[in-house]
């Protein structure tokens, strides 16, 4: 690995100044589980590495029942799944962070980093989009907020400009009778990259028998995570039933435009979208019915 300079600022302003001054030759270090590998293997290069874990704003992790979830960009997967309240309110996010690498990875990797790495196969981005999460960005020209579904632009690329930094993610309160789930398909049971993934969010009516609102987000089947709009819309007003989940799965396949690679064929990935959509919808509805996400 080519050597670089390292800095661990304790203030956001200092970090932005350093990032802005170095431009595209600067890399941000949160958990390091992607960037260190990429630097080692020469997929990315850096003259300056800015470690953001000492900036208070980037490590804040705040949640009170019924409020929005505030997730500093450096908050680790482990911090998230270790918090039972967050797990109850945002189960799809918890599903995702529990399966990113093994424990050794989860104790370092952050959801913010997962987003900024902008891999099409990132597990946590689909749930963030399903929850309508917002990305709060700071840069030399001030702050801006962008919905997560507009964050990624291509594999490994996103809207962050040189000098900009993801500061926090906020996940709005989800309202009553919502449920959600994320699943991916991998050939092993752990330590793998998603061949395909689906995050489903639903709101049911008071009876728990009909879907009032839904959002299905797919990973690893397009250059960026994609919302299966048609399937999500179609579900509105439909009964909670395996047949409807399966139909939604069929519709969701249309949103997929996958590639063939060593992790799976395009045909297989498209098929998996149907399976995972059906399964996550079922799980999400089950969670509403079991009251595991009875957020007010």
């Amino acid at each position, binding site marked *: 690995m080519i*050597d670089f300079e390292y800095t661990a600022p304790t203030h956001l302003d200092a970090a932005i100044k350093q990032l802005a001054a170095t431009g595209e030759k600067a890399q941000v270090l949160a*958990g390091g*589980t992607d960037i260190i590998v990429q630097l080692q293997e020469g997929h990315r290069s850096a003259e300056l590495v800015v470690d953001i874990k000492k900036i208070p704003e980037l490590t804040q992790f705040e949640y009170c029942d019924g409020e929005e979830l505030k997730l500093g960009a450096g908050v680790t997967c482990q911090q998230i799944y270790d918090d039972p309240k967050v797990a109850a309110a945002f189960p799809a996010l918890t599903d995702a962070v529990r399966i990113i690498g093994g*424990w*050794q*990875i989860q*104790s*370092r990797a952050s959801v913010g980093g997962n987003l900024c790495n902008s891999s099409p196969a990132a597990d946590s981005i689909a749930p963030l989009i399903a929850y309508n999460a917002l990305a709060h960005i700071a840069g030399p020209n001030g702050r801006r907020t962008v919905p997560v579904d507009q964050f990624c632009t291509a594999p490994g690329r996103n809207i962050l400009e040189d000098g900009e930094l993801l500061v926090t993610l906020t996940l709005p309160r989800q309202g009553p009778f919502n449920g959600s789930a994320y699943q991916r398909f991998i050939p092993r049971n*752990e*330590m793998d990259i998603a061949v395909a993934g689906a995050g489903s969010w639903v709101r049911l009516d008071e009876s728990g028998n009909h879907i009032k609102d839904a959002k299905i987000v797919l990973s690893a089947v397009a250059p960026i995570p994609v919302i299966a709009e048609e399937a999500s819309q179609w579900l509105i007003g439909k009964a909670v039933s395996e047949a409807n989940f399966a139909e939604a799965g069929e519709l969701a396949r249309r949103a997929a435009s996958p590639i063939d690679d060593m992790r799976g064929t395009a045909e297989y990935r498209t098929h998996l979208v149907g399976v995972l959509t059906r399964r996550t919808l079922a799980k999400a509805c089950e969670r509403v019915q079991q009251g595991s996400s009875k957020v007010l």
Partner: protein
Amino acid sequence: MKTHVTTTINGESVEFLCQPRQSLLEVLRDELSLTGCKEGCNNGNCGACTVMLNGSPVDSCLVLAVEAEEATIETIEGVADKGHLHPLQQCFLEGAALQCGICTPGFIMAAKALLEKNPQPTEEEIRFGLAGNLCRCTGYDKIVRAVQAAAELQKESVS
């Protein structure tokens, strides 16, 4: 240019100089002679280099050594207590839970973290908790059993 780092390793204050590009694994092994921490893949996929960093297990190949400033690190060298093997180490020996032994330090570190968080794990929880560590020799059977035995041993010593 080298950076000066002050850290705590296995309870002792340690200072070292390193380049920013050096991983914690590299510094532990090459600069500090803590070679119990093994390199299997250098990209976070085998767990052989597992150490505890501020109380959590990490792949030390994916930590920059400079990040260890003011951190608390525990390595396999710190697991045995002055002449006494840790129950996990004892159970790995008694249960023949190692063959070539290269993955063993990583497994013991991960298993120790697991038992500290969850003293009585189920087989499923053990297997999930150790999924970040690869072993090619044993087929894992005896490793899982050794962790179960260590949990049992620790339970007995508590009660």
